[in-house]
């Protein structure tokens, strides 16, 4: 959050909140657009999965977590990392594969990590993060810490055994974990109705005796409210919850995806309906929380931050090849 945000409105006001929400979503949107551009310029390589259209989820969720809480995310996690407060410079440098990246160039786009932010990756095995999140929550319970672990995954993960095993284990042991399913309707190219017998995903929670709810992921205020309700209950010790957030991926699955599996008309229809940014900006203007100069100001702030991140990444050093095998093991001298 840059300084001019705070100056613009009294803390806690509708206007202050609107500025924060637009700023948060705009940072992600413009960052992702820039990443696509940098991919074309061969600055970023490997797999690149963009979060365009889904920004409201990361922004809404992170607002209700405390710094002590933990986050486990997927390979489409730039938005979560940014919203969680990992510096954009370190994220961009990681995209470049530089030593100053948040995973020292070992992870790339799919494996952003940050110990300070308690951000446990960027997991690129679909559903692979759920058991991990369950264990982080177990550690908190065993150490009697009132923390929550937020585990974000796509709807494709619901078909994996690890989803069911983790939901059961977390519910059985009443662990403080929020299972947040970002349902963007496509597991890579496989539409939800082609992969799930029960497409009302939040209803799966009932099978584990766990509260499940669903919210419109294009409405950032609704996401924040739903996440707050769930996290508050979880923090009070009532056990895990499943929150299904309905969204849409405006971009291709990755930079290699020719999008043969969905009609252009469908994508256009979603765009016409408006993503979370368009919708919230319209609402904020209608409510007179914000006006056009506010948006223009935020655009400038975000553009400056992105340029600074690119400059940082460009100027950063490559990890020396001599360091290749560092961190396979932890330095340890058994006494």
């Amino acid at each position, binding site marked *: 959050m840059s300084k001019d945000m705070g100056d613009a409105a009294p803390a806690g006001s509708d206007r202050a909140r609107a500025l924060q929400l637009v700023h948060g979503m705009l940072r992600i949107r413009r960052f992702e657009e820039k990443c696509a551009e940098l991919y074309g310029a061969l600055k970023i390589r490997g797999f690149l999965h963009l979060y365009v259209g889904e920004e409201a989820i990361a922004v809404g969720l992170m607002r209700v977590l405390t710094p002590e809480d*933990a986050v486990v995310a997927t390979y489409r996690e730039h938005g979560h990392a940014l919203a969680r407060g990992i510096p954009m410079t370190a994220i961009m440098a990681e995209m470049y594969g530089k030593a100053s990246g948040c995973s020292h160039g*070992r992870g790339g786009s799919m494996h952003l*990590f940050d110990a300070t932010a308690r951000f446990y990756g960027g997991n690129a095995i679909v559903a*692979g993060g759920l*058991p991990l999140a369950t264990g982080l929550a177990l550690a908190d319970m065993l150490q009697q810490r009132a923390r929550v672990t937020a585990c974000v995954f796509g709807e494709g993960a619901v078909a994996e055994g*690890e989803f069911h095993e983790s939901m059961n*284990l977390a519910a059985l042991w009443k662990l403080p974990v929020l299972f947040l399913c970002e349902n963007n309707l496509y597991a890579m190219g496989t539409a939800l109705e082609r992969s799930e017998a029960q497409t009302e995903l939040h209803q799966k929670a009932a099978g584990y005796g766990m509260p499940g709810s669903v919210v419109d992921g294009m409405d950032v205020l609704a996401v924040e409210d739903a996440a707050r309700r769930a996290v508050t209950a979880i923090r009070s010790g009532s056990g895990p919850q499943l929150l299904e957030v309905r969204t849409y991926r405006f971009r291709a699955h990755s930079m290699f995806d020719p999008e043969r599996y969905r009609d252009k008309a469908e994508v256009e229809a979603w765009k016409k309906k408006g993503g979370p940014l368009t919708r919230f900006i319209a609402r904020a203007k209608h409510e007179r929380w914000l006006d056009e100069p506010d948006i223009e100001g935020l655009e400038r702030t975000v553009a400056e931050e992105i340029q600074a991140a690119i400059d940082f990444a460009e100027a950063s050093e490559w990890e020396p090849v001599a360091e290749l095998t560092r*961190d396979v*093991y932890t330095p340890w001298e*058994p006494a």
Partner: protein
Amino acid sequence: MGARCRADARCVYALGTGVNDSAIQTTYREALRSALREAMRADPRVFLMGEDVGRYGGSYAVSLGLLEEFGPERIRDTPLSESAFTGAGIGAALGGMRPIVEIMTVNFSLLALDQILNNAATIRHMSGGQFSVPLVIRMATGAGRQLAAQHSHSLENWYAHIPGLRVVAPATLADARGMLPTALACPDPVVMFEHATLYNLEGALPADSGAVDIERAAIRRSGKDVTLVTYGGSLPKTLAAADALAADGIDCEVIDLRSLRPIDDATIIASVARTRRIVVVDEGWRSGSLAGEIVTRVVEQAFYDLDAAPARVCSEEVPIPYAKHLEEAALPQPAKIVAAVHAVMNRG
């Protein structure tokens, strides 16, 4: 590890005698249980989690009685969800605990292989060194109990292949007793293979037996004519073969690898430099085996010390069968080891 653990061991590891330097009669299973008990007493972050570790007492009775002492929070029965509870062990390790995950057999561990390889082994490197995973995974391995093709395999080499893991195979009472505290002190994931035929192994163990290293091989029998390298459940068979060969006038040196990753090249190479011949005994299948890895290292590092081509005694390339005579035929046996040694002695 050293002084602290040794002192702790003296405090709690007293099965009756209470005298530090006296030997006590025990079993491999009891030695493992003592190690678990001591670790749980010494560090509140340590807990045991797995299928039937609590009320049932452990499928091989290793944790029998621990539920009564430590309660269900720390002797934690899990659903039959290998991937979730192994992954939960990884997460709990990241969250500051020192979990011990027990998987019933190596065959079942394949259901958790995603978590072990894609998370436990990679997170430290993938995060640029920000997160370590101090997790111990114990599991039974190996054949010899007529449990057929889904409970009898030796897949240690699959795990020993993976950078980021440490892999150990206690084959003696002292190692059953002493590897766990060192594995728990290690900041990285350690996979511990307990051969199912060793649990009833009986013998004497010094009452102050404590933590041991998890990196070096051990010479279990000194000899000058041929080096036999083995580990885990094949150690007793190899020692039996060495006894038989001694009657034939062949003096075998027997090396117990103990650690399958890292492999202690130095001990093996130094032995081969003395004996100039090597036979590797490994219950894994021959193709792509740990035995193949050992032989390769010897050839790479000590080619000109060899007087004969190396030999391997491995399992036959077949899913382990049920019928006793077939199972025995599928596995390394003392007679096969004896024959392989004779062949190597007659070469070159």
